[in-house]
């Protein structure tokens, strides 16, 4: 049986900002149809890895960056519309700022319904709560309508039940997904493959079925038991590489 084509391939990739190494010798291959969860303590390099992956498949990816990059003054509707900009002509897109295009309006209203944003659709996003803003940014990614979803903590600001539903929806709408999460249970429940990053390197890459929450906890726990970490300092930079 032939394997699905490879979408992302990193071979010995390293990356540093100035003197600070953020990714070290990353080997990673992701094929079409795979659902990969990225785990690891904050500062481990998950966001940088996602940015690298995005660079490899920019045209086919719907991106959810951690900062969400919303435009505060625009309504939730317009922020979601930005995801679909490339499907509309320039003039139509400019007119949409004055008066929403009927087609886009229908589509985005339906999208808002599934995201639970119907009441906030016409408010400027600076007046929305953290969870609502997050759902607007997810709406923007969904409205990209691409086969790949690259998400950086896309459900960090919503309650667990909602997070599960949103994640299910995102995975149903995208054939391939690479999503960084901090909720380990969510990762185990929804993804087939789990990649754990520590200190800029991959320290675990295996099927979710072989892992348990306790096993995952150990990747995080070591940092806490490390003697330096007891000094009430953040976990970055003091974890022994695994």
């Amino acid at each position, binding site marked *: 049986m032939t394997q699905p084509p490879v979408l992302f391939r990193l071979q010995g990739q390293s990356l540093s900002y100035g003197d600070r190494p953020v990714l070290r010798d990353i080997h990673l291959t992701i094929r079409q149809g795979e659902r990969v969860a990225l785990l690891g303590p904050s500062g481990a390099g998950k966001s940088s890895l996602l940015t690298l992956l995005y660079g490899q498949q920019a045209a086919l990816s719907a991106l959810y*960056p951690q900062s969400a*990059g919303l435009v*505060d*003054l625009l*309504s939730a509707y317009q922020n979601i519309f930005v995801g679909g900009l490339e499907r509309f002509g320039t003039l139509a897109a*400019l007119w949409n700022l004055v008066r929403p295009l009927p087609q886009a309006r229908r589509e985005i209203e339906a999208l808002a319904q599934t995201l639970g944003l119907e009441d906030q659709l016409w408010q*400027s996003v600076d*007046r929305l709560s953290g969870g609502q803003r997050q759902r607007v940014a997810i709406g923007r990614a969904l409205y990209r309508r691409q086969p790949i979803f690259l998400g950086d903590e896309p459900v*960090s600001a919503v309650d667990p039940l909602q997070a599960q539903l949103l994640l299910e929806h995102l995975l149903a709408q995208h054939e391939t997904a690479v999503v960084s999460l901090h909720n380990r249970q969510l990762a185990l429940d929804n993804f087939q493959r789990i990649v754990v990053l520590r200190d800029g390197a991959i320290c675990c890459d295996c099927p979710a079925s072989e892992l348990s929450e306790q096993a995952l906890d150990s990747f995080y726990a070591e940092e806490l038991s490390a003697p330096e970490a007891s000094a009430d300092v953040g976990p970055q930079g003091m974890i022994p590489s695994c």
Partner: protein
Amino acid sequence: MLSFDRRSSVRTLNGVCLLLLLLALLALFGADLQVYPVDPWHELGRIGRGLLLPAWDDFPLLLQALGQTVAFALLAVALAVPLGLVLAMLFHWRGVRYLCAAVRSVHELFWGLIFMQLYGLGALTGLLAILLPFAATFAKVFAEIFEQQAPEPGLAPGPRVRGLKRYGYTLIPQAWPALLSYTRYRFECALRSSAILGFIGLPTLGFHLETAFKQGQYSAAGALLWAFLLLIATIRYWLRPRLIPLYLLLALWLLPQTPGFSNGGYLWRFISVDIWPAPLRAGDWSGTLAWYSQMFTEQVWPGLVQTLLLTQLALLLTGALILLFYPLATRALAGPWLRWGGRFLLLVLRSTPEMIFAFVLLLLFGPSGLPAVLALALHNSGLIAFLVANASDAEQGSRLTRPDDPRGLLRYAYLETPRRFPALLAFLFYRWEVILRESAIMGILGIATLGFFIDSAFEEIRYDRAMLLIAATAVLNILVDSLSRRLRALARTDAQRQPGLIDPPQKRSPKQTMTRNTEPQNG
């Protein structure tokens, strides 16, 4: 008036913009914007040629004009800063606040016209004309800077340490960078003020520029303008802290002499007699009333209305031009190389005083409100667009940038403009008061704003009229200032709602304003 929808910031801002638009449309009907049948294109061609091919042959004159312009600005600022600092420490006294507001509301040129009556066309007139309004502005802004400082260091010396000791050991050192950067910015403004004082006859750049333009020597005028722009663009290279004492000595030596025809008795006569209408001095109440009502219907009201109309038109046009100009100077929209062209354009626009633009445009379009509106809009849009473009560049590569952000025109419409808009509006309201003051003085060039009547009154040596008109201008200015502060607070609450990322918008104290050194007020 406006109903503010708490659910959408954009609706609030759109409401404010709509109001500005409606006011400007109304102003369009009342304002005198007639183009007089001069042949502008021929003249414009000659001016353009003069600007492109400046004549540098009269170098000594050029040097003298620039030298005296810098001398007035430097000495005036050197005196205004300590004065402003002292006043800032006393700013909690209501009397000081009101005095400063009144002094600030009168434009440098009007102060120049007043002191000219007392001290003639000499050094003292020019110095006082810049010194007084600048000291009052320094007082207000320094006081605001002190207010913004963190209170903790002030608590350390204990509550009994007050006054100078307290300022000297806590507030001034704390606020030093902000004070310095604002002073630097105001020095640039002082150079512009000093230059345009030439329009009332002081031997600064404006005088030579006016002469050259009136004689049609556009190449000589071009050289003066370019030299002035160069002077302003290179301030940070030649204005070294260590050289300032030397410059101050040079400036003292360069100042023109003050003719000695004035004495204290003359000043007293001016204040106690000359500036009051004759019927009032005679105690004739009905005559006084008649004098005031006649002045009001014939000069104050028409001048006030024209000034306001031109201000509103200029304000709207400024906003439109900012939206047009700012993308030209941003890295995100114009690209790393083309943006230098845009930045050069904005440098020329913001460095050239409005009066000079207006003067040139008057030659082209004749004496109507049109040149004033265009000149005000060009200068102010250059100034604000520069700040807006800087804000856009500062955001490049920040956490807000996404790799899939739209590009080109769509980036302009969907991303840059909405993100920049609240700050843009706040800047525009900061300049409102300045635009009003400037459109009043445009009258000196023959446009029927308040300055026209003031200038005529001085020419006819009717100081009573001049003073009434100046007082009316000042009151109008103070009113607009307080209104603009309210509108700004509205725009600011939204501008301050900084991209809170995923976190809910944070509450901020009302004291936090935009970074002070970029504030384009009182230019």
